[in-house]
């Protein structure tokens, strides 16, 4: 890598930085309870909740920092936070 003049950065490149290692608790879905309200995807500050083809959601554990907002806000308590097994 060479530093470009003025130090401009190519877009969306923090994707190289996998923040999943910050996590203490990991979110886990209970798809039985999920009503596909999309709130978890909307509220995730780490853009690590993604819709699946079937309309349910999945976590991108490469980036999820385990904040637990999705679990706290899920109207159906479909997400629980479990201790990371290290």
């Amino acid at each position: 890598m060479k530093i470009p003049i003025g130090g401009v950065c190519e877009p969306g490149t923090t994707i190289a930085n996998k923040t999943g290692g910050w996590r203490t608790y990991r979110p886990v879905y209970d798809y039985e309870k999920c009503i596909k309200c999309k709130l978890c995807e909307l509220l995730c500050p780490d853009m690590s909740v993604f819709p699946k083809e079937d309309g349910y959601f999945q976590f991108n554990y490469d980036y999820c920092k385990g904040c637990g907002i999705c679990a706290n806000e899920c109207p159906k308590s479909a997400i629980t936070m479990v201790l990371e097994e290290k």
Partner: protein
Amino acid sequence: MTPKGDLKMDKMVVVEGSYAVAHAVKVCRPNVISAYPITPQTHIVEDLAKFIADGEIQNCECINVESEFSALSALVGSSAVGARSYSATTSQGLELMHEVLFNVAGMRLPIVMTVANRAVSAPINIWNDHQDAISQRDTGWIQLYGENIQEVSDMTAQAFKIAEDKDILMPAMVCMDGFILSHVYEPLVMLEQDLTDEFLPSYEPLNILDPKKPLSFGAFADPNYYTEFRYMQQKAMTNALKKIEDAADEFYDLFGRYYGGLIDEYQTEDADIILMAMGSIIGTIKDTIDKLRQKGVKVGLLKVRAFRPFPAEAIRKAVKDAKIVVVLDKNISLGLNEGALFTETKSCLYNTSNHVPVVGYMIGHGGRDIRMSTIENIISEAQEVMKSGIKVESQFTDLREELL
């Protein structure tokens, strides 16, 4: 050295220095002008505002900002979008910009700014010296100083060309002595639009803020990277040394006018005494030299056009045969009791085989008028130093002892 051009009187008009600058800016086709009024820069921005009001500058927006800080900040945005961007200021306004000056240079934005040099408060003083610009010497801005309004006008186009060069991409200050040059009426050839278009191509930025190619500007660099950013800025400044000379030569080829590249020399060829200075004092020194040459005093002048990048090599070459070098500074580094040009000239001769004595005079602070007789006194003191060595290395000139 490139020969001097002839002054073509039939192409000259008598205008105010500020108007000459505003007109030069106009023909350089700026896209964004952003400035805050401050004496003695005001006439420049007023004249530009009139051009805009009369529709004489196409594709240009003029922002009447609420401070100098915002004046330059707005240009950070405009230059990053790819706009040719211009401002003008002086003194307190320039000092208020201090933080932004670093930012512009670090982001490699080739903004050009006229500085109508003025003293810095306190006490408040609206008259000329160079303390304002000299105090910004480490910010990464190219600093050029002009001796008359023709040179300042021509230098404005040169500054854009130098700053926007892909090997440089550093901002540039065109320094003109406040009032002495900003408010003087004298004849000059105003930059012709067609020749200027030929001399100065449109600005083609390397990177711009563009939704189609969404780059990020102004990221923070941690200790793993910061050093290299600084190194690259210095390298650009080093590249500018040659580009400043090239721009002066290319300008001469097209316009037929030449005022020196990094430096200019006057009667230095056989000179025992070489004076060094920047700005409008140059003319007064030249007249003094002519007078003393008639009396057989072998005195010459090294005019410094580029203070940043510092033309160390050119200076070493110009003073190699001198018996004494006398540096006149319209500024002081308080606590060192020296002007910046003096300190740096001494510094660039150290570690060389040239052990010529160098003495410094701080002169013309806060608009104190500089007369030929003052220059003559300095030269006669230099003759003493040649005989008996340096007694006082650096001193104030024209101190009114009765006030102390």
